[in-house]
């Protein structure tokens, strides 16, 4: 119940296309859903995040869509660029009395072809 499932494992998109990565969870106690972006040799960095009281959040070319009833959320990258080529991790967080802990999906390796 602590798992976050993520698909696809890898994704190849042409420059200018739309990249879509999907995640699903079981534990309804999760209350915060961030996406992290990781370039080779670097640590992950926060890209965008959403709370379950919102169905969509957009920041530039990046949009999170959240479906609370289905316990699913997805990342859409519009006008994908070669510089977006990276590994993307969805995550879910449980607020604790003293802080929070995170569960990460297995990651999606995105390649954007020029």
């Amino acid at each position, binding site marked *: 119940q602590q798992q976050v499932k*993520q698909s696809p494992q890898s994704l190849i998109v042409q420059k200018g296309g739309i990249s879509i990565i999907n995640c699903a969870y079981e534990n309804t106690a999760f*209350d*915060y859903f*961030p996406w*992290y972006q990781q370039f080779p*040799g*670097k*640590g*992950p*960095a*926060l890209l965008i*995040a959403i*709370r379950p009281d919102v169905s969509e959040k957009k920041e530039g070319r990046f949009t999170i869509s959240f479906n609370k009833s289905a316990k699913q959320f997805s990342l859409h990258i519009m006008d994908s660029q070669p510089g977006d080529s990276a590994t993307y*991790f969805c995550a879910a*967080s449980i*607020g*604790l009395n*003293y*802080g*929070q*802990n*995170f*569960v*990460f*999906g*297995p*990651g999606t*390796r995105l390649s954007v072809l020029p």
Partner: protein
Amino acid sequence: GAGVSQSPSNKVTEKGKDVELRCDPISGHTALYWYRQSLGQGLEFLIYFQGNSAPDKSGLPSDRFSAERTGGSVSTLTIQRTQQEDSAVYLCASSFGGRNGELFFGEGSRLTVL
């Protein structure tokens, strides 16, 4: 420093040796996390420190793994009697704590056990 600092960046050791990995979190961050990332894999939670609370050790894979955080700042992850399956990148992250906080990751320590 401005970010999370980890050392060493690379460590090659022989099977059976002990290793120590160090993490310097961002100043003022009360929460500190250790994750393990095997080649091409996701982020496996190891341990979480939050302020003066007892650490959440639920992710440590065996009793060969331990971690401490001194003075609420620097953390050391120790792996005793290393095995080849311990080879991975060990990532440290810190945050301000509380709910819905952003994790700031270091670049990781790559451990290779021969």
